């Protein structure tokens, strides 16, 4: 049984929600190509420039399982919070205050989010309350897919049934590493475009099996010679180009891994166990830093970490998870600052849904809807956004959405990334009133 303990839990492929959205993925009339295609090989070679490119970047960190953001950004002034959360409420005096920055907030942070607090003090953290989408769906898969597609109703004519990152990449970053998924399998976010996405579990895993022994090198050299000497037409020529690109890309990515240098350590001493640890989210953000430092052209990184489906014993789990998240973001922020790229960077911490207000019978929380979205980066205008939580939000089952998650993306893409064709990327979204997040 899937417990959502990791990001790729139960998701060997991509999922579509049951119900009406399934049909969104039907082939458009007359289009022969499968719309779920990961995109044809385009023959574009990646360009690792050897030095970081000065360009805007978005790093999306997905907290799989539905994160209890209310215990991360805590409405500690509301008695209703303590009434409903009971044993798993974070006491006000343990929470970290948000009064040291250019803006101040009545909310407080989970005690383990010390790096986020420090970044808040620099004016580099924004959070948006009550983010969601219309017609909430409390299924993990369905809600995740809604987040991935960023289309709630139906795709307009001319927009393929596809994930929003696929559409972004097609129009704004149509190169092999224009958009990268790290440690997230093959999520729907990347599916359905015509640009081939780069999806790997980890950079160090993106290599040809067999090690570096002479026997294997001998084989590989023969294979490379064979492919180099091949000339064919049609689909065999495309196959040749794809294999050739694979050889080159493996080399480039491995070169990026081995040449990466940083004064920042992503390994830290676990405050609970005392042992050194490099959790997966830290490894993944380090992989992002490696690609950035090597000069790849990536604009959007999509990564994440699981375990947030905290139906029971939430306090301990949450403490561990938020420590990992906070440390990973802290290290990555320092790394980007050292590279001089922090001002170009926005990190969006998202999740498929928030959780219920009331603690359940096993000291956990069940599936809810609206969540608090965290944005971190030199390109972020620090502060609290979205409607302030009031008792009514807490006495109900779960907070109801007031800001559409797609409006947050829209604002980042338009105002930070300078992206074009947003009618195509986010066809159901317009932004009459920007929040001024970035």
């Amino acid at each position: 049984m899937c417990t959502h303990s990791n990001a790729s839990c139960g998701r060997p492929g991509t999922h579509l929600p049951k119900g009406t959205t399934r049909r969104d993925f039907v082939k458009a009339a007359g289009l022969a190509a499968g719309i779920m295609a990961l995109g044809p090989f385009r023959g574009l070679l990646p360009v690792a420039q050897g030095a970081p490119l000065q360009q805007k970047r978005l790093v999306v960190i997905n907290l799989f399982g539905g994160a209890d953001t209310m215990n991360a950004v805590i409405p500690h002034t509301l008695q209703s919070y303590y009434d409903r959360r009971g044993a798993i409420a974070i006491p006000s005096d343990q929470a970290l205050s948000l009064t040291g920055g250019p803006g101040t907030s009545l909310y407080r942070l989970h005690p383990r989010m010390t790096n986020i607090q420090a970044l808040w003090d620099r004016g580099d953290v924004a959070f948006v309350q009550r983010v969601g989408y219309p017609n909430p769906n409390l299924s993990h898969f369905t809600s995740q897919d809604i987040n991935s597609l960023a289309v709630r109703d139906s795709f307009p004519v001319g927009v393929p049934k596809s994930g929003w990152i696929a559409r972004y990449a097609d129009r704004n970053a149509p190169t092999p590493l224009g958009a990268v998924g790290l440690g997230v399998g093959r999520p729907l976010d990347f599916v359905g475009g015509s640009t081939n996405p780069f999806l790997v579990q980890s950079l160090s895993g993106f290599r040809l099996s067999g090690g570096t022994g002479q026997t294997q090198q001998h084989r590989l050299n023969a294979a490379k010679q064979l492919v180099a000497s091949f000339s064919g037409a049609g689909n065999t020529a495309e196959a040749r180009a794809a294999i050739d690109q694979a050889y080159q890309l493996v080399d480039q990515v491995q070169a990026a891994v081995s040449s990466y240098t940083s004064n920042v350590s992503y390994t830290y001493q676990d405050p609970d166990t005392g042992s050194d640890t490099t959790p997966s989210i830290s490894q993944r953000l380090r992989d992002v830093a490696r690609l950035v430092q090597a000069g790849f052209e990536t604009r959007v990184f999509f990564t994440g970490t699981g375990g947030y489906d905290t139906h029971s014993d939430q306090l301990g789990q949450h403490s561990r998870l938020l420590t990992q998240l906070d440390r990973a973001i802290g290290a990555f922020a320092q790394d980007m600052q050292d590279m001089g790229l922090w001002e170009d960077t926005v990190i969006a911490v998202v999740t498929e849904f928030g959780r219920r207000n009331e603690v359940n019978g096993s000291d956990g929380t069940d599936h809810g809807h609206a969540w608090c979205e965290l944005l971190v980066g030199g390109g972020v205008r620090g502060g609290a956004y979205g409607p302030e939580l009031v008792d009514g939000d807490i006495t109900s089952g779960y907070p109801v959405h007031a800001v559409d998650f797609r409006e947050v993306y829209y604002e980042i893409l338009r105002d930070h990334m300078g992206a074009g064709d947003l009618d195509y990327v986010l066809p159901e979204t317009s932004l009459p009133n920007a929040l001024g997040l970035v």
Partner: protein
Amino acid sequence: MKRTHGLFTTAALSIALAGAASALAGERPVEAYDFVVTLAPVCLDGDFPLRVETASGALDGTLHVTTDGKGRLAGTLDLAGTTFSVSGTVRSDASGTSVALTARAGRKDRLDLRGDLAGDDVSGAATSRGTAVASATAFSLDVSGASPLVAQVTARVESRAGKRLGGTGEAVVCGTTLKLKASGRDGSKYGFTLRGKGFRTSGSGAHVLGGSTLTFTSKGYGATAVQELTVDTTLAPRNLRYVDERPAYETEDDVPPNTPSVEGDTATTWSVDPALPDGLVLDAASGVISGTPLAEQPSRRYTVTAANVAGDTRAQLQISVRRNRMYSLEQQAKPSDEDLRHFLRRTTWTSNDDQLAKLRSRGLDKSIDAMLDFEMDTAWERAAVAAEIVSTDDPEGIVPSDTDVARWWQTIMATSENPFQEVLAFFWSDHFAVGSQDLERAAYMRDYVDLFRRDGAGNFRDLVLAVSRHPAMLKYLNGDQNRRGSPNENFARELWELFTLGVDNGYTQNDIVQSAKALTGWRERSRQVTNYPTAGNSVTVYYMEFDTNRHDTDSKTFLGRTVPGQNTTDDYDAVVDATLELRAPEEFVCRKLLEQFVMDDPPQELVDALGAELRNSGWELRPMLKKLFQSEAFFSARAQRGFVKSPVEYGLGFIRTTGLQIRSRDLDSALSNLGMRPTQPPVVDGWPSGTAWLSAQAMVDRTNFAYTVINDTNRQHDAGIDVLTILPPPGSRTAPEVVDALVARLGIDVSPAERQILVDYLSTVRQGNGTVVASPLDDTNMEDRVRGLLYVLAQHPTYQVR
């Protein structure tokens, strides 16, 4: 022309020559020569200033003279107010050129001149009689205005009766054209003589194509010359042949370039008569026939003429153009071995010599019958159940996990003796996609897979009905939630949109609303199986049942047909029958079958023809599929190698072709890494296809899949798997033999250069310092290198297509 003083001159008039040195002995085709013989430094033909020295001083005059073929001079001399008539001789040979002239006027006056050529003058002694010129002592004839005496020779020499040569030619000497006859001998000494009136030249020497240096002795016009001449020879083309002399083309297909070959020398001009069929072109410079025929042409003879300066040669081509086979469901006559390999690639994921031999001996017709005869409860199936489904926790296999079911089917795919049963079941599982990851009912999925394995070649109507009521489909597309008063249109829509008609093809939203009501009534139930697997334990088993209380009893009208309301049974038959009877689902499903087994974007005519087969057989799939796999369309050029392999086709093909089975858990994880885990299509319309599977990432994954397979040596040894069994027998295992055998087994096309790379790989080893040194293939290194070779071949571009 510049006057030349040296007697021995090399003349070389080049004519491009690119012939093969094949005609030196034996029969020789016509050979063309064109060269210049220099007979003498000057040609005494024209007007020349003449000065005669006398006792009383010099006299200047003009000599008007011509020279005949024997070197006899004739003309006049104007000197000292007198016109003399002139006769004489000119002689040239290796020692020099001498002239003797006698000029007479009247009876008394006579002037004799004898001199030799030196510089621009012929000078020597003069004697005179008579009064016109008295006491001549010497003369000087200024020949600076003269041309050298040359013979421009063109000739054709050919073999006559073995080594005797004959031929004709021409020489132009002093403006006179002479006819020449040639004779000579061919052999180790090659030579010929050209004779004409007053001129003869005879050359001999070693004959070398592309330029023979022959020593020519020439005589004429009073001259004798011996010269070494490099004469470029051009052989006439002969024995014109085409790669394909009886080509049978098809409209709309690019024809493979039909390349000519000639012996002798390159032909410089090409022509064909009559004109080639529309769309075909004869390249006038190379003779290659290429293009794309546009119209049909019954078999007809065409004569191609290839010519150069030495001659021409002809070939007869019998060309026919028929309508492209891609339109035709007619039975393919006499499929070639390559056709049979194509058939195997499409129907079994693999093609190797063993299969080919079996197919050949059994015949295509019987093989297709056997392939379409789906057996259940076979040995391989029982083995897969025992290995993957049944466990001590679940001895009856009633509550398998998703992973159990995925591995179970993959094991069958990898081991079945009738892989087509799985190929077709996999096609249907993609067409009627249900993803077990969204079901949480793996037992449903196992049964769903078996539906296709059992009935995949049965009756299409029955299949659609079975799918529609299947618990997996009911759950996946919410049929179990579709009930009176609370309809769920999900399945109603997909039944038409994805499974039978295609999007927006012959139905309206209102049709969907109405048919969804007809499809109401099914619901999921569960029961406990107690004391399972052991006393005191129990498991929950799910099933679907029709609940009359949930069935909508209104009458429904869709696709123009009204189904009366009732509350005893479901209306699934009515919905499917209305679809089959009132619309044309055969088009949609046959197009999809063609796109899986024959070609992308099949012509409508073919889709319609195949659809008619299906409908006319009462929706029986077997006869339609048999027709398909025997059809000319299936074997047409358009169909061959037209698809990129999907991961399942690539992965299971590699395992089955090499015989290198791996553990089901490894296979499952490897196929999942490739993005195609059977039983788990990602979305409701199945998997991507075609070039979507070609990406750098996918290629890395594929290469690593192959590595997993070839690197599982120890476990494979334990399981009794021996990779050497796919090699030729011991004694025939040299590196080239091993390469050829495995290239054929994997169905790869390699060029000679690629083959050499593979042979080199098998014959070398990379040492610790990275240098590659020779190391013969032998029994001690055979297995390791063969495994390596399979890994290398799996990366070949042609192995990525089927």
